[in-house]
């Protein structure tokens, strides 16, 4: 019963995440940016733009210029999140890829770093009046959700250990449509429930910042308006009958 519920939950979550995100990306890609609006100084070549985006994604360059505290907490949280996610690949691959095995030890510290970063970000929402002013309930809940995921994960690692072998066969099972029973540990069930919730709200929430960054015209445009004429399709239609 539990197994069926969770298996179906994850099928649904995966479908919403990929379908929803794919739809959003399609929408962004389809919507024109009719004017050249890169925030200058901006790169004058495509490879320059790729490098700019790379720095934004990997280093959070603009955020670093803006505010060192937010940068520190935010960057630590995201870097840790990435490591944790990669570490989790071991539950989905068999045999475990070699590099996934290599990062396992770091992944454990990353769990703590992630929660610490999130707590720092959350503290700002209470302590800094400007940020308190702009925070909606959803902003708090999103942090609570992520801390819930990280916290329950750490709990399983250090306190209420679960049957990892059984868990892995559950996941490999749902991936190959050959369902295996899920271990009925409450902490694990909470952890997985929260993860599924995160996957489901991803395409409907501010988590769209991840694809959004790549579509942001102020960051992804080449600064070459004098050299190349940039024209949106709807703007081209205005040109009919012009001298």
């Amino acid at each position, binding site marked *: 019963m539990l197994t069926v519920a969770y298996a179906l939950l994850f099928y649904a979550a995966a479908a919403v995440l990929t379908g929803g995100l794919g739809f959003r990306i399609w929408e962004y890609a389809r919507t024109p940016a009719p004017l050249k*609006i890169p*925030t200058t100084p901006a790169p004058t070549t495509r490879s320059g733009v790729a490098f700019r985006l790379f720095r934004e994604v990997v280093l959070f360059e*603009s955020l670093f210029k*803006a505010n060192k505290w937010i940068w520190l907490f935010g960057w630590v949280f995201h870097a840790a999140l990435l490591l944790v996610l990669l570490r989790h690949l071991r539950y989905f691959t068999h045999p475990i890829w070699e590099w996934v095995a290599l990062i396992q030890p770091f992944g454990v510290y990353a769990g703590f770093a992630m929660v610490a970063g999130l707590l720092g970000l959350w503290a700002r929402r209470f302590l800094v009046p400007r940020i308190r002013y*702009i925070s909606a309930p959803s902003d708090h809940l999103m942090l609570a959700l992520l801390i819930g995921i990280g916290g329950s994960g750490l709990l399983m690692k250090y306190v209420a250990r679960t049957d990892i072998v059984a868990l892995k066969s559950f996941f490999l099972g749902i991936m190959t449509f050959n369902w295996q029973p899920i271990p009925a540990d409450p902490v694990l069930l909470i952890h997985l429930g929260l993860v599924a919730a995160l996957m489901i709200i991803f395409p409907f929430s501010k988590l769209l910042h991840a694809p959004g960054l790549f579509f*942001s*015209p102020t960051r992804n445009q080449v600064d070459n308006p004098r050299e190349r004429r940039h024209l949106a399709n709807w*703007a081209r239609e205005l040109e009919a009958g012009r001298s």
Partner: protein
Amino acid sequence: MAQVKEPDRSEGELPDPLEIPDLVPGCMAASKPYVAAPEFQKPLGFPGELVENWQEKAIEKMAELRGKYRSFRVFLDACVKCGACTDKCHYFLGTGDPKNMPVARQDLLRQVYRRHFTLAGKYLPWLVGARDLTEEVLDDWYSYFHQCSQCRRCSVYCPYGIDTAEISMAGREIMDSIGKGQKYSNEIIGKVLSIGNNLGLPKKALKATLEGLEEEVLEETGVPVKFPLDEKGADILLVAPSADYFAEPHVAGLIGYAKVFHQAGVTWTISSYGTEAANFGMFIGSYENMREIALRIRKAALDLGVKRLVFGECGHAWRAAYSFLNTLAGPFDFLDQRYPIPQHICEFTYDLMQAGKLKFDKSKNEHIRLTFHDSCNIARGSRLGNMPGGQFEIPRAILKATCNHFHDMPADTIKEGTLCCGGGGGLLTDELIEIRKKGAQPRMRALQQVAEEHGVTHMAAMCAICKAQFSKVLPMYGFDMEAIVSVHQMVSNAIVLDRVEGASQESEGGEE
């Protein structure tokens, strides 16, 4: 009205330009520009007054913008409320009104967007701070989208480059579309479209002014520097902001351009049809109006048969020219392709300097200790020269060539982090003087620092709006009104006019 509290500081210590004020909610809610009367709305294609079903119409317009502008959609979706931008707006720094924090300004629109275009906003509005478009919200829009000079400082610091200028432009466009336009901008756009320039100067007045300038320069220098109008077949069409034709200190800049053209030995002209460089269509986010204004410049260039297009000193105008002109009114295949189209007067002057064709007598500016205000729309919305950041280096190189004493303001208040003058983006109107004054505070404090440390007496800028705004607010902060100068005013003071008349009409781009 609540006042921003001045923190205690010991005698003589200068305030930090970027000091973050305490929040004073609602303190600027009453600051709003005059609403455009029907006579100013209609010619631009907007309803004369607030339409009956304005809520519905506004949401329809939002849906339209969402399909036409990726910036609108991505910026409204992507913000994570990280708060990095909250202390970056000069209007927030100067007022403490939380709705002047860039993210909060965006939220005025985002709350309605979420209500109508997102799942969470439709079903759980309280969760994501979604709201219906009520009269109160519309009032906030009108107040706070007219407290944004579209300077883009916030977009530099946002991890996703969210540009509040795009949002305030969209907000103004939505308001225009339901009949709640701003008098100042819309009246001016009407003037450009009917007469050719923002000031509504007719050809006769323009001609008289330019002749007066010729006499003035001849008297002063003994050199017959020309100020041609509507001269067919000239090499260069100069498009300058209309303030350059009559207002102080702007006109001194125009004299500077003319002297540079004279010394370069090129022929040039101003057009009475496409006189205006500024494009207020940008302020109201109206592609169509911006395009109409840009097309006048194209037509002027075609009619006069010029080979090159050079723009005078103006911030927003240069953004509209550099970033948008090719899109709006291109392609300019009928101009000489060996030069940038359009070219900025500072690029023109700088190229001549590099070629060793200009000489300056710096002693003429010996009484001046100078700093430079990077106009935001040049700093963050466009470029000069062929290298990223040329917009910072080229004007400084020109100023240093003309003046012995140059000192930059604090590093976090210049270049890409430059602070707006407080009067840009359609705010340069008398009824907004309070927000203009308060918005200028960070820049004025930065100026105070170099005045104290280096004895700086003058600040150069290359934007008509900056210059007009500074002339007004400098005295409010204890500076001389004339402390603001054009870049080409410095050039004009120092340039050595020694070209032998007739020797070389070697228009560099002369051959057909």
